[in-house]
């Protein structure tokens, strides 16, 4: 599962063993899915990082399995492999900021490209634009850092985050508009040539440049931007009579929207951003089982049912999305549950489907680049590797190897009104305690297909202690239940393939409100449980010694209010987390065994 959508929540947490249950019994021989998981999660494949040799070996294994079960190439193709290009990394290749002939900064301690910046040179006068925030009028609160400024063809300097001293309600509003990309876009829309971001002395991470992250680096943005150190900020403010950075920030921190920015007279800057993006190729793997029974009416147009799972993982976990403990850094992230388990389920479902009547063709797809941001499935949809309008439904399997207590989450059920009935019918003989979740906006490849208007369904057995760690091993997989997941997928796929009428697609409204979130900077040590859909935030656990643990929260608690914000879902929680102040006491209200409890908690700064 990719960590993009919930990245910020996950980053503030680590994943612990939900429910405190013992792992499934040691895997027995004889489960059909077991050899696949063991082959793909072997150390020799070195964690199957997209574009790596290990991923190539994994793809070879999958191709071999497709051949063995009798799958053919996709219609019009001559290979099981479907290559795509992607950005494998982003680096600052020597960004330089020059004040005058004598003063230049080029070390990363003082200036660092923003990870989404283009490589380009910008030169111009300098305007300090406060926090660089633009809050749309629809928020019943006007805040526009550019209201009194002309920044056309100038370089804008803004503070990172949002005013530090505002009340909780205002924090909730401002936090949404304080993301770096959002600020960069606001500056560009006002005509600025470039954006410089300074972390103010009154904020966490004071005076530090902003590390380049991979998450936002998938493509350039038409923006030229860099972060600057406190020393650079101070040097610029030497041109501002009678004002220090700190005093200026303090005034802005009141949140008074009438505190204006100003031009820094007598300064011209040259910003030369140099960013390198490494382009590499990865490939999806896809096989095809043509119809074996009288095909559905040609006027139907929905010729395919598709089952898919991503086969890539994190390699050695050096790309920033590993949750390895310090003692495990750099070890092979085997990714047995994430997502050798899903690959095994699709292979075995495909094998079972070869023997079933199929009035629609079945596509078996194996994605790469999922962990880097759903790259493979997005490419498949964008390039119409098969016409997306002809896909009647997409079944996705991501992390299906750790079933506990007979529970299986079926997600994205809201994407078609037909899913409830299809699930009920298929699950009667299979017998999972299914947890129905409607939301299709999931951090997995379902996102690509739901976005293309295809009814989608995601199979998921829940997060666990070993998530995105080297300990996600084949020995911890519950193969008995993984075989049952494959069986459930087989029956649903067969019933979709043989329906007279295609499934309807229902576009589910996305809960996430407008704006872009700031990067979360508060750490609470809560671990959301994504397998259950409850009113509030259900905790799968808390990190030992973290603020939540200290406050007495525990697994099974449902947070319903956080720092004055009512919490009905994960998104509410993420925004509430964005808005809290580090090291200040907040109140958390939660339900435990039906009783309402109130505790105080002090979030700490995220590392």
């Amino acid at each position: 599962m990719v960590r993009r959508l919930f990245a910020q929540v996950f980053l503030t947490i680590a994943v612990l063993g939900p429910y405190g249950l013992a792992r499934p019994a040691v895997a027995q021989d004889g489960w059909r899915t077991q050899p696949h998981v063991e082959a793909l999660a072997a150390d020799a494949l070195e964690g199957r990082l997209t574009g790596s040799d290990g991923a190539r070996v994994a793809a070879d294994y999958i191709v071999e399995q497709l051949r063995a079960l009798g799958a053919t190439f996709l219609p019009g193709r001559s290979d099981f492999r479907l290559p795509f290009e992607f950005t494998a990394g982003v680096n600052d290749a020597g960004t330089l900021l020059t004040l005058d002939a004598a003063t230049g900064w080029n070390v990363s301690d003082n200036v660092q490209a923003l990870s989404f910046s283009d490589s380009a040179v910008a030169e111009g006068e300098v305007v300090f634009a406060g926090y660089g925030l633009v809050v749309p009028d629809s928020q019943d609160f006007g805040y526009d850092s550019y209201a009194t400024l002309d920044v056309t063809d100038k370089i804008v300097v803004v503070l990172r985050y949002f005013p530090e001293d505002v009340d909780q309600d205002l924090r909730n509003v401002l936090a949404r508009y304080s993301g770096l990309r959002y600020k960069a876009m606001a500056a560009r829309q006002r005509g600025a040539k470039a954006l410089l971001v300074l972390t103010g002395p009154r904020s966490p991470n004071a005076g530090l440049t902003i590390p380049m992250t991979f998450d936002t680096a998938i493509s350039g943005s038409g923006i030229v931007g860099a972060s600057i150190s406190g020393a650079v900020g101070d040097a610029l403010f030497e041109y501002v009579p009678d004002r220090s950075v700190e005093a200026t920030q303090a005034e802005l921190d009141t949140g008074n929207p009438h505190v204006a920015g100003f031009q820094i007279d007598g300064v011209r800057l040259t910003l030369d951003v140099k960013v390198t993006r490494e382009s590499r190729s990865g490939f999806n793997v896809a096989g095809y089982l043509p119809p074996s029974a009288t095909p559905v009416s040609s006027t139907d147009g929905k010729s395919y049912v598709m089952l898919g799972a991503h086969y890539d993982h994190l390699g050695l976990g050096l790309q920033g999305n590993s949750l390895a403990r310090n003692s495990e850094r750099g070890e092979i992230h085997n990714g047995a549950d994430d997502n050798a388990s899903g690959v095994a389920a699709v292979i075995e479902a495909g094998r079972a489907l070869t023997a079933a009547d199929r009035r629609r063709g079945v596509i078996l797809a194996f994605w790469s680049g999922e962990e880097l941001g759903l790259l493979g499935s997005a490419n498949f949809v964008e390039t119409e590797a098969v016409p997306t309008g002809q896909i009647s439904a997409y079944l996705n399997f991501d992390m299906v190897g750790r079933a506990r207590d007979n529970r299986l989450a079926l997600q994205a059920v809201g994407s078609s009104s037909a899913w409830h009935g299809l699930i009920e019918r298929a699950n009667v003989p299979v017998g999972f305690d299914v947890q129905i979740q409607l939301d299709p906006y999931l951090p997995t490849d379902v996102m690509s297909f739901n976005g293309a208007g295809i009814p989608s369904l995601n199979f998921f057995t829940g997060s666990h202690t070993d998530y995105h760690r080297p300990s996600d091993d084949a020995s911890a997989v519950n193969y008995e239940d993984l075989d049952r997941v494959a069986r459930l997928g087989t029956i649903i796929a067969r019933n979709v393939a043989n329906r007279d009428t295609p499934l309807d697609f229902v576009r589910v409204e996305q809960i996430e409100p407008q704006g872009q979130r700031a990067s979360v900077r508060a750490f609470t040590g809560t671990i959301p449980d994504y397998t259950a859909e409850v009113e509030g935030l259900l905790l799968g656990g808390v990190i030992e010694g973290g603020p939540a643990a200290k406050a007495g929260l525990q697994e099974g608690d449902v947070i319903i209010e956080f720092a004055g914000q009512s919490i009905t879902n994960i998104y509410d929680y993420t925004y509430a987390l964005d808005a809290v102040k580090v090291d200040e006491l907040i109140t958390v209200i939660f339900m435990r065994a039906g009783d309402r409890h109130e505790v105080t908690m002090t979030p700490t700064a995220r590392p």
Partner: protein
Amino acid sequence: MEGGELEMRRRRAADARTRMYRLAIAAMVVGLLGPVVTGQDGDLYTESDFLTRTRRLTIEGKRAGEGYYRPDGAKLVFQSEREPENPFYQIYVLDLETGDSRRISPGHGKTTCAFFQPGSSLIMYASTQHDPESKALQAAEIAFRESGEERRYAWDYDPEMEIYTFDQDTGKYTRLTDVRGYDAEGSYSPDGEWLVFTSMRDAYNRELTSDERKQLELDPSYFAEIYIMRADGLGQRRLTDVVGYDGGPFFSPDGSKIVWRRFDETGLIADVWTMNLDGSNQQQITDFHSMSWAPYFHPSGEYIFFASNKLGFTNFEVYIVDASGAKEPVRITYTDGFDGLPVPSPDGQVLSWTSNRAGGQAGQIFLGRWNHNKALEALAAAPPRRTSGNQGAAGGE
């Protein structure tokens, strides 16, 4: 019907407590149960001692419940709201091997409480399908729901409700009762020869006093009594004669007893009772001084499942009690929300019950592997039954 009846009980109880329970009512809007209070019960056991591999069986539709097995255990008949044209329950048969389900009621009107006749192709259920108003009532209910208004989900004890059979071989419907007043909640004897059921006909077949007329307006279930008839509908005979709702009767596995639940006059307290087929030997089996209802025998005949809200107004849990009620009941379910309407499979190895533990929706049917030996062990270890000092009135002999 039991699910609806339950809602009715809750509502009445809340009203009777001088609107103290506004919040509790709000939580019950449209059958959506809010968080409940779990009481401390000195618990000796956990749910997994008795139930393992628990799972949600029904998924489609707004709500489902009252799943009763065919005697060979291969099929389940249940009621569900799952078709957009009808906002009321219809009756479905689910094949437990294939997962295929099929509606057996005609699709219009209100239906409830189905039961397979042993040894035949008939399924008995209660229905208003003959009521010329039934389609208009459906349309009115749909319009009401679309209006966005909400009200408490309530069972209305429609006096048009009559008992029918459906023949799975011929598709023929046969009406067995024809008396004004709600006739429902039927079940067959193990030999298939007899039907016990609940009827409110006593409210319509005689002159009521003015107090009784007020009572009828407030809640017709006050007049509900247990009746027995032959499987062809002949020989209808009344077995109980105590004010308050007597309902939900089922035969014991050997066919010698009837188990049912009896509400007191206020409609707040209910207990499980047993009696002989002629109405004699009426015995109170439970005494929690709470709402204990929906009894059903385990096929061993050793003990009776039932549901009670002993631990909180909206927190129904499943219990078992020995067949004679000598011992204190043993709690089975330990999950927040509603757990009720327990029905064991004919081989006694699986328990089917209705729960809203999946959250967010009204009740659905769940299954779990039943640990019969643990149940016997727990019953043997249970202390003698405590009494609340509120013994229900025995009568009707």
